[in-house]
């Protein structure tokens, strides 16, 4: 039975473990910079990066770019989610549709979104649409593949029960297939959102005038490596926040399962 003070100690230990690795890296980074082993033009010290970060945050510049990128990502992800879910459910439930679309999906899936940029520019020009298209491509495949998988994984034991109970087709889809597929579909959405966010840099290579990806590309061109690092950190942090949000949503909806969370 842990007493109050033991419990405090344990929580503190957990907090330390959570941040330890990151802190070690940052400290090492600063030390090596101060000792002159790292050139500031390649990798500026954390102190410089923090100063730039502070300046960009207080001036509202960072927030504006983040907002623009987030909107693009949500647009691309939104379309990917809708299309991916709809097609995924259709293909998962219909063998015929699966046979007809399987080859096309397998061929397109391995092409990285960056490789699509020339085609995107050709079809959509250099405005918002081509960027949203690149982001859409990134998110689409995790969503559709996981949706199809989730539906395929429907427990055939439950399918037998449904057959015996003469469950109607719509009840079968809504009460047996989809809830069972939901965890896998959720994974697909989660991965899709992550990839969409990672694609934002690739998307903003297409003649962007704003956004976090643009910020990095622009700073790179002007050898402003501190801004580049700030951009990278921002992408990491926002990505983590998005992931946490979806995780929360997932936990809220799936209340009927006990999930394994590690030894």
């Amino acid at each position, binding site marked *: 039975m842990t007493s109050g003070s033991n419990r405090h100690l344990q929580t503190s230990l957990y907090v330390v473990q959570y941040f330890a690795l990151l802190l070690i890296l940052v400290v090492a980074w600063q030390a090596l910079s101060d000792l002159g082993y790292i050139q500031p033009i390649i990798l500026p010290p954390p102190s410089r990066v923090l100063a730039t970060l502070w300046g960009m945050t207080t001036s509202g510049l960072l927030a504006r770019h983040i907002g623009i990128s987030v909107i693009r990502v949500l647009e691309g992800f939104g379309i990917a989610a809708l299309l991916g879910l709809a097609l995924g459910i259709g293909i998962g439930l219909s063998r015929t549709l699966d046979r007809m679309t399987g080859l096309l999906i397998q061929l397109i899936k391995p092409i990285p979104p960056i490789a699509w940029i020339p085609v995107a520019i050709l079809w959509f020009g250099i405005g918002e649409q081509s960027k949203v298209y690149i982001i859409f491509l990134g998110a689409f495949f995790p969503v559709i593949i996981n949706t199809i998988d989730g539906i395929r994984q429907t427990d055939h*034991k*439950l399918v*037998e*029960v449904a*057959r*015996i*109970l*003469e*469950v*109607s087709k719509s*009840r079968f889809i809504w*009460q*047996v297939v989809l*809830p*069972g597929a*939901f965890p896998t579909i959720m994974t697909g959405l989660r991965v899709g959102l992550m990839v969409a966010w990672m694609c934002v840099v690739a998307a903003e290579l297409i003649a962007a005038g704003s956004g976090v990806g643009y910020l990095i590309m622009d700073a790179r061109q002007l050898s402003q490596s501190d801004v580049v690092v700030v951009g990278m950190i921002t992408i990491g942090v926002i990505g983590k926040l998005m992931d946490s949000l979806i995780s929360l949503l997932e936990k809220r909806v799936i*209340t*009927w*399962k*006990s999930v394994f969370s590690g030894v």
Partner: protein
Amino acid sequence: MSTKHNERKTEPRLGIEGLSKNYLVRSEAIPALDGIDLTIEDGEFVAIVGSSGCGKSTLLRIIAGLETDYAGRVSLAGKSITGPGLDRGMVFQEHRLLPWLTVEQNVRFGLKTGYSGEVRKLVDEHLDLVGLSGFANAYPYQLSGGMAQRVAIARALVNQPELLLMDEPFGALDALTRIQMQQEVLRIRKAEKTTMILVTHDIDEAIFLGDRVVVMSSRPGRIKRVIKVDLPHPRDRGSYEFVKIRQEIYREFFKEAELPFSYAI
């Protein structure tokens, strides 16, 4: 409680004639069932007993309509069985409840699509029937094995099927719970008077529950003997008649010298 019997128009005589089934293993036909003939009367409780692999589960699945590739004829009240249906409810060895529905919703799931009667009342009645009235809002993962199986039974019965098929329903439960559940089944049967077919490898269970015990041999699956159990309920597992029937059945499986009667089963 149940008004079914007053409404039933036909007798659910289950007729099985010359039923045979082969499985194709690497282009070789392995016979699973060979020439099964059996008739089951309305309101009967038939227990089918045999060792693993004797085809008893296959037989049950064919009756349920889950397997359709066989030779011979299987009919319910004169009509051939072509597939699964609400007229033949089934309880499996796993509870097979939908994990994302509550107990109450799972039982409701068993109701025919478009059922227009008083849903709530019917569901409550059946929860009460299996002794789970207080658990309507629990999820399957919160239930013990025995409780979950009881929900499965309630779901199978809620649409008042002609036939209740049970495929080793208590196989996954511990010995004490098993005995409890056997008593529950008797109680439910008394209340609902549904025709029941139970498949089990537990000889005592078969004798305890069945009006008739069908003994099956394995490879290929054939009916060796059908023994009538003419004992009144509640049956005493230690009574002379019970033991005598047990002995008879054991003789079908074990040679004289191996009869394990000095041991408590």
